[in-house]
């Protein structure tokens, strides 16, 4: 029994050796690669919040993933496991910045939870005085979206801008910054001009709808500050955007 098992394993080993030898023979001499030894892999980091908008007092679930990181922190939360999730209940809109450090460098990712005011009580009251201008702005001045490599305003964008212009006319003292954003495809420099043209197209439409040009500033972000960092049309569409910010 014992002997037989041994000879079996000898057989297996020698077969393997022969196979390896044959495989070796077949292998052509590979050209010496010019590449240097592989560098330590850079860490990766992603974080998301679900839901990413809550009413004040509500809770949201933060979920994060990192790779190749030895030191992982979330600003405002502290040191955390490389992968995990956590419930948070922010009292105001908060950006959670995940920082993953490893031998290959540092990578960060941000998830933002927008905290909205609770809906007004059923008893009809005038617009809540507690609402800040920023909250009002987020609720009433909506972002517009663009087609690929285009700064033409689509019909849906024209409707949104008309509504935005009406809303802005209710707050004549608020200044507006229009940010032009692009998706990750294409060159950094060309996208800066594309974002510039998107912001300019929106400004022109707002002016045509009666908002004084002096109230509106524009700024391109190219593909530098995406709203969403996955590759794919759903995410890219989110990033081809004219984003409105209340400007003091």
């Amino acid at each position, binding site marked *: 029994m014992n002997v037989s098992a041994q000879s079996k394993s000898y057989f297996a080993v020698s077969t393997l050796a022969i196979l390896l030898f044959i495989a070796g023979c077949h292998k052509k001499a590979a050209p010496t690669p*010019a*590449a*240097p030894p*592989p*560098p*330590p*892999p*850079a860490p*990766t980091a992603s974080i998301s919040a679900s839901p990413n908008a809550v009413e004040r007092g509500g809770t949201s679930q933060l979920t994060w993933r990192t790779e*190749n990181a030895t030191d992982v922190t979330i600003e405002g939360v502290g040191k955390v496991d490389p992968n995990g999730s956590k419930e948070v209940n922010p009292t105001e809109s908060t950006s959670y910045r995940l*920082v993953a450090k490893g031998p*290959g*460098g*540092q*990578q*960060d990712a941000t998830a933002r939870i927008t905290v909205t005011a609770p809906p007004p009580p059923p008893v009809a009251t005038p617009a809540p005085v507690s609402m800040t201008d920023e909250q009002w702005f987020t609720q009433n001045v909506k972002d517009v979206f663009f087609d690929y*490599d285009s700064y033409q305003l689509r019909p849906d964008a024209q409707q949104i801008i008309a509504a935005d212009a009406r809303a802005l006319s209710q707050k004549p003292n608020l200044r507006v910054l229009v940010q032009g954003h692009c998706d990750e495809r*294409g*060159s*950094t*420099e*060309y996208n*800066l*001009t*594309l*974002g*510039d*043209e998107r912001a*300019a197209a929106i400004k022109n439409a707002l002016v045509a709808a009666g908002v004084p040009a002096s109230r509106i500033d524009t*700024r*391109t972000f190219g593909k*530098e*500050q995406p709203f969403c960092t996955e590759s794919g049309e759903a995410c890219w569409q989110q990033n081809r955007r004219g984003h409105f910010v209340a400007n003091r």
Partner: protein
Amino acid sequence: MNLFSEAGTLGTRMRKLVLFLLTTIIFVIPSAAQTDWIRTGTGLGVEKVRIAVPDFKTSSTDPPNAELLKTFNDTLFNDLTYAGIFDVVSKSFYPLQIPGTPQEIQLEPWGNPPPNAAMVAFGNFGKSGDDVAMQGWLFDVKNIASPQVLGKQYREKATTENARVIAHRFANEIIFRLGGGIPGIAESKIAFISARTGHKEVWMMDYDGAGQTQLTKLGSISLSPRISPDNGRVAFTTFARGGVDLAMYSLELGRTVTFPRFAGTNVSPAWSADGTKLAFSSSMRGDPEIFIADANGANPKRVTANKGGNVSPVWNPKTGTQIAFVSGRSGLPQIYTMESDGTNLQQVTDGGYAVSPSWSPNGQFLAFAWRRKYGPGAPGGQDIYVMDIASKQWVQLTHDSGVNDFPSWSPDGRHIVFESTRSAGTQIWTMLADGSQQRQLTNSGHNQQPNWSFK
């Protein structure tokens, strides 16, 4: 199944052949005009000089200098390996007896197989007091009567950095002598953008990726660094001044210096080869157009007038009067050339998505990033291409490896640095101008938009 993979192999072979032929057409025929390349026979696509580079011998054992010696030897070996004009003999073929001085060398074992070298670079290197000193020679193995081609000695303060500098200088001498009189690039620099600190800042490194140093500390987004022809300044784009503006960093003063703020979005500065002008893209008068200003930002003048973004200008370094740039005037961005007064407009690319031109030092080629087939499910990626401007023939240099962008020519026109997403994150890579010897220079965080110095 088997048949299928056979056909695939054949297809690959055909592609390689076509690529080889194109490379030959573009690089050999034009270089025939440069007689020095033909005389020495060391141009790209031409037979390369077979050179042996044995480790330099230590010239002192006290104090110990093993680390400096290793830095020196590695740097010299890599400089010559990546110079693009040598076939460097593998160290395993070298004779056992390594020479440190001309008295110690026997030419025959180096000239015969297996090394079969035409040239040997050798010498000694060691600490002497606070300094390191190098003596180096280049010998023509086949010229028994008078083999010495080059003899050099250098002495510097004993630092790792100086061990590298000395190796670069000696390598440059060898490359200059054997490479048709074109100065080597071992002491050139590459500016780039790195986000490794959490912010996109301007960084600088040696041409081989050593000595990566942060220049700006603006804590914002900075982009598109361009080194001035005299290596004194770096022009760049930054979000740190409130808008999207041009800015200037002085390498002599080690800080950003004053530069005018223009209205609108101002991006992608480009130095004229004489250092007196900057071309850039600006929407100071509405649409993003190409402007030219003095190097200090004074007297900006618009030279294009076409809706659709106009951006990423580069000067023809040879003539100093032409500009290549990117424009979206006909839809997806294409590359155009024009005179610097805006006349004689020519469209260079004929489709797809073409961006980020870089003009070769001899004025003959444009390198750029191109997604040739555009649309959902279209084959191919964004790769680096080189086009011969006169004939519009092009060669693809990168294949099937991530998104590639921002090519920038080395001063000798033999190399191209670029950014690629093929490894972890966006990183900076170099290659020879025929697409061979691709190697990664950065690996910490994300790194992008490399720009090779003029000298």
